[in-house]
C-alpha cells in the first residue's frame, strides 16, 4: 500500500472508531489495557534491574580476606540480628592501619564504640532502640553500601575493651570472593519473582488487553466483513483497525511512561509491602523501560489484529458461526482438559520440573476454561431452546437462542471473572504454601514469647555490667548439654543458676554438688520451646551454681527471662549482651525461635500485594467486558419493544443471558480451583485450601450476577423505550 493510502485508511479507521457503538467505552478500555500491559512489562524490567543492582552492590562490599602472610588492613566479622523474626546482618569491623579502605557506603571510619546504621535501622521503631543497641550511632550507610535502600544493616566498631570478645578475620579490601552477607543471603531467586509478576499481573493485564481489543467487536466484525466483500485487502482492513485504536493505545502508553517517571527520579517505597525501589537501579535501565512501553503499545495493536474474527479472513463464511468453530476455540477446547490432567499429574516430574509444569498447567487451564464454559453454555442452550419448558417462556427462549448462536458472548462475559477466580485462588494457595513454611505468627506476636530470650556468647560467664543492664525483674539461668552420648547427641540438658533464679522458673534448688532431675513435661513451657531444637524432649539436670558456661568450649548459653505474663524489653537484653558480653552475642527471644524463618512469610507479602493489583485489573476488564455485552444485549432485545410494553421480559432475559452464565462460571471456576489445588495441598508443608475463600468467591459471583442482571435488564429496558426501527 502507498503511504497516502495508509494515511487515508488510518483516518477512516479513526473516524469509524469514534462513531462506532460503544466507541467511547472502547477508547477508555484500550487506553487502560495498554497502560496496564506497559506497567506490567516495566515491572518485569524493574525486577531484573533491582536484582542486578542488588547483586552488584552486594558483591562490591564482600570483604577480601587477607591471605596468609599478608598484612591485613582491618578486622572484619558479621552476625545475624533480627527484627520481628526477620534476620539482618550486623558487620563488626575495626581498622588496623590508617589507610584501611572504607567499606562501601560509609563516609568515614567509625571511632571505637561508634556505629553506622542503614536508614531502615536508623528510622526503625524507637522501642527496638537500634540507635543505641550496638553503640553510639554516628551516621547512616549510604545507598551504594546497601543491596537495596530498605535493607537493614549495621557497621559496628567495637570499643577497645570489647574488640577481643569475638573471633574476627583480617581483610585487605572489598569486592573479593569472600562471604556474601545481608539481604542477598535472604532474597529468593529472580525467576520466582518474575513468575509471580507474570502470573499475578501479566495474566490479568492480558485479560484486560484482550477484553479491550474485542470490545464492541460485533460492529467492527460486520464492518470488516463488509469491507472484505467490497474488495478491501487484508492490509487495508488492518490499517483501518489500527487507525481506530492508535490514539487510545498511544495515550495509554504515554500515561504508563508518565507513571514510571517518578520511580526514575526518587526512591519510592511501595505501599503496604515495605519495599523501596532504588531509582539508580531503574535509571540504569531507562532505555529498556522506554522500549517496554513502546513494545506494549505495538503489542496491543498486534493483539487487536490477531483477535480479528475468523469470518473476515479469506474464504471463510460470513454466516453466523456455530459454537466451537475457529482454530483458537478448538485449540482451547482441546487443551483445557489436557492442562487439567497435566496439573494433576505434575507431581511425578521431580521437584524442580513439577513446579514449573504445575504453574504452566494452572495458567493454561485458567486461560482456556472460558472457552469451555462458552462451548458448554452454547450446547446446553441449544438443547434448552427445543425443550417445551424453555421454549414456552419468552425470556428463556430468547436467552437460549442467543447463547447458542453466540458462544463468544459468554466467553467474553465470563473470561475475566474466571481468570480472577484463578488469580485469587492461586494467591491464597501460594500464600498458605509459604506461610506453612514460615514461622508461627501467633508465637511471634505473643507476650509470653517475649518474656524469655536465649543468649549465646563466646564469653564464659556473665559480667556485672551485663546483669546491671538487664531489664528490671529479669533472671538468668545457664543452659547447656549434659550426658553427651558417643554419637555426639545429648541425653539431657543442664540448667545452672543461683537458687533465686532457678525458683523463678519453678525449678528445684539442690544442694551444691548435687543435681535434681526434672522431666521434660514439667519444665517451663518457654524452656521446652526454646531448647527443643537442641535438646528435644530430654529431661533437665538442675544444678545450683553461678551462671557460667556449662561447656567452656562452646561459650555461655543462658536464658534471660521475666515472669510468664510480663513481656521483657528484648532490645535491652540484646544491647546488654552486645555491649557487655560479646560483640557477636546472639539473643533470640522464644517468640522468634524455631527452624522456620519468618523471612519467607514476610517475602510472601508480595503475593497478596500483586494478587490484589491483578484482581483489580481483572475487575476492570470484567466491567468493560460486561459493559460491552450489555450494549450488545440491549441492541439485540430492543425490537421486542414492538411486541410488548412491559419491561419484565428484559429483566428476565438479562437474568438468563448474563446472570446465569456468570453464576455457572463462578461455580465451575470454584470447582476447577478445588481440583487444581489438589496436587499442592495436604501434608505438613503443603498449602491449605480455604473454604472460606470458596464461599466468598461464590457469594461474590452471586452478587456480580445480580448486578449484571440488574444493569443489563435496565439498560435494555431503557434502550427499548428510545428504540426506532432501522436497517439491520
Amino acid at each position: 500500500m502507498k503511504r497516502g493510502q495508509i494515511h487515508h485508511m488510518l483516518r477512516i479507521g479513526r473516524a469509524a472508531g469514534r462513531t462506532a457503538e460503544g466507541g467511547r467505552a472502547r477508547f477508555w478500555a484500550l487506553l487502560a489495557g495498554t497502560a496496564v500491559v506497559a506497567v506490567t512489562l516495566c515491572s518485569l524490567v524493574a525486577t531484573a534491574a533491582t536484582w542486578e543492582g542488588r547483586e552488584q552492590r552486594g558483591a562490591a562490599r564482600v570483604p577480601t580476606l587477607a591471605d596468609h602472610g599478608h598484612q591485613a588492613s582491618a578486622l572484619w566479622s558479621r552476625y545475624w540480628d533480627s527484627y520481628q523474626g526477620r534476620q539482618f546482618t550486623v558487620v563488626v569491623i575495626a581498622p588496623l592501619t590508617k589507610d584501611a579502605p572504607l567499606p562501601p557506603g560509609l563516609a568515614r571510619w567509625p571511632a571505637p564504640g561508634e556505629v553506622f546504621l542503614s536508614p531502615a535501622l536508623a528510622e526503625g521503631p524507637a522501642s527496638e532502640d537500634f540507635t543505641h543497641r550496638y553503640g553510639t550511632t554516628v551516621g547512616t550507610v549510604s545507598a551504594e553500601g546497601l543491596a537495596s535502600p530498605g535493607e537493614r544493616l549495621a557497621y559496628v566498631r567495637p570499643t577497645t575493651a570489647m574488640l577481643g570478645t569475638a573471633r574476627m578475620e583480617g581483610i585487605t579490601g572489598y569486592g573479593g570472593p569472600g562471604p556474601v552477607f545481608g539481604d542477598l543471603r535472604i532474597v529468593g531467586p529472580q525467576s520466582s519473582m518474575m513468575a509471580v509478576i507474570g502470573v499475578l499481573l501479566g495474566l490479568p493485564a492480558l485479560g484486560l488487553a484482550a477484553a479491550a481489543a474485542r470490545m464492541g467487536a460485533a460492529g467492527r466484525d460486520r464492518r470488516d466483513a463488509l469491507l472484505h466483500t467490497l474488495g478491501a485487502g487484508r492490509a487495508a482492513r488492518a490499517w483501518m483497525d489500527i487507525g481506530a485504536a492508535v490514539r487510545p493505545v498511544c495515550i495509554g502508553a504515554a500515561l504508563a511512561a508518565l507513571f514510571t517517571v517518578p520511580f526514575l527520579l526518587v526512591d519510592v517505597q511501595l505501599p503496604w509491602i515495605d519495599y523501596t525501589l532504588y531509582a539508580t537501579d531503574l535509571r540504569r535501565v531507562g532505555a529498556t523501560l522506554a522500549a517496554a512501553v513502546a513494545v506494549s503499545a505495538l503489542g496491543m495493536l498486534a493483539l487487536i489484529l490477531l483477535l480479528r474474527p475468523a469470518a473476515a479472513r479469506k474464504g471463510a463464511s460470513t454466516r453466523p458461526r456455530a459454537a466451537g468453530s475457529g482454530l483458537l476455540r478448538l485449540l482451547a477446547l482441546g487443551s483445557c482438559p489436557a492442562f487439567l490432567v497435566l496439573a494433576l499429574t505434575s507431581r511425578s516430574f521431580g521437584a524442580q520440573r513439577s513446579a514449573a509444569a504445575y504453574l504452566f498447567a494452572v495458567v493454561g487451564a485458567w486461560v482456556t476454561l472460558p472457552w469451555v464454559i462458552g462451548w458448554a453454555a452454547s450446547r446446553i442452550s441449544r438443547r434448552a431452546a427445543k425443550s417445551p419448558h424453555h421454549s414456552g417462556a419468552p425470556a428463556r427462549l430468547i436467552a437460549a437462542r442467543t447463547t447458542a448462536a453466540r458462544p463468544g458472548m459468554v466467553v467474553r462475559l465470563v473470561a475475566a471473572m474466571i481468570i480472577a477466580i484463578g488469580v485469587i485462588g492461586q494467591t491464597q494457595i501460594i500464600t498458605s504454601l509459604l506461610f506453612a513454611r514460615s514461622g508461627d505468627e501467633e508465637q511471634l506476636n505473643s507476650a509470653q514469647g517475649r518474656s524469655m530470650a536465649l543468649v549465646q556468647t563466646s564469653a564464659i560467664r556473665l559480667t556485672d555490667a551485663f546483669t546491671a543492664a538487664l531489664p528490671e525483674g529479669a533472671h538468668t539461668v545457664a543452659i547447656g548439654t549434659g550426658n553427651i552420648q558417643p554419637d555426639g547427641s545429648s541425653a539431657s540438658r543442664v540448667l545452672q543458676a543461683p537458687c533465686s533464679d532457678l525458683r523463678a522458673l519453678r525449678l528445684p534448688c539442690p544442694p551444691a554438688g548435687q543435681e535434681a532431675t526434672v522431666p521434660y513435661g514439667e519444665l517451663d513451657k518457654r524452656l521446652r520451646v526454646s531448647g527443643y531444637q537442641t535438646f528435644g524432649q530430654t529431661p533437665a539436670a538442675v544444678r545450683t551454681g553461678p551462671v557460667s558456661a556449662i561447656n567452656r568450649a562452646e561459650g555461655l548459653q543462658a536464658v534471660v527471662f521475666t515472669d510468664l505474663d510480663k513481656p521483657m524489653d528484648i532490645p535491652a537484653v540484646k544491647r546488654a549482651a552486645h555491649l557487655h558480653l560479646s560483640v557477636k552475642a546472639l539473643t533470640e527471644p522464644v517468640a522468634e525461635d524455631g527452624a522456620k524463618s519468618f523471612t519467607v512469610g514476610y517475602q510472601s507479602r508480595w503475593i497478596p500485594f500483586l494478587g490484589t493489583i491483578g484482581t483489580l485489573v481483572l475487575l476492570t476488564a470484567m466491567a468493560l467486558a460486561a459493559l460491552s455485552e450489555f450494549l450488545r444485549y440491549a441492541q439485540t432485545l430492543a425490537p421486542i419493544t414492538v411486541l410488548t410494553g412491559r419491561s419484565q421480559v428484559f429483566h428476565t432475559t438479562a437474568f438468563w443471558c448474563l446472570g446465569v452464565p456468570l453464576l455457572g462460571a463462578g461455580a465451575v471456576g470454584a470447582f476447577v480451583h478445588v481440583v487444581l489445588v489438589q496436587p499442592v495441598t495436604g501434608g505438613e508443608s503443603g498449602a491449605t485450601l480455604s473454604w472460606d475463600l470458596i464461599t466468598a468467591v461464590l457469594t461474590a459471583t452471586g452478587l456480580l450476577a445480580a448486578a449484571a442482571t440488574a444493569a443489563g435488564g435496565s439498560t435494555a429496558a431503557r434502550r427499548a423505550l428510545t428504540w426506532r426501527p432501522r436497517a439491520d
Partner: protein
Amino acid sequence: MGMVFQFGELLPELSPVENVALAALLDGTDRDRAYGESRKLLDELGVPVTDTATSELSGGERQRVAVARALIGSPALLLADEPTGALDEASRDHVADTLFAVPAARGCGLLVVTHDPAVANRADRVMQLEQGALAGAR
C-alpha cells in the same frame, strides 16, 4: 393492532416459528396454542416451517414472518411501514399479495405506508403525504 416494519425487526437467532410465537407468548398465550397458531400462520403465508435461524431467511421470507408475527394476536388493524421497501420485485409482489389478502381473510383493517405506486395502487384508498402533511385523498 399489529405492526410490520421495513426491515422486519425480528430476533435473528430465533427460528421463524419462535419469532411469531414470541408475540403470543408475551401476550400470555399458552405454549402449545402459540406454536400451533404460528405454524398455521406461516404455512398460510408460504414460509417453510423449519429450525433455520431467521437471519438466514431471504428478505421476502423475513417480511412474511414479520406479517405473521403482526397477525398472531388477531389484530383489528394491521399497520405496515414500508413493508416492501427493501425487497426485489418478485418478493415485493409476494409480500404485497400476502398483506392485501389479510383484510378479506381475517376481517381486519390494513394501513400501509409506501413509496411504491404499484403497492399503493392495490389499496382501497390512497392518501398522499407531502412535506409531513396529508395532501389529499382519493
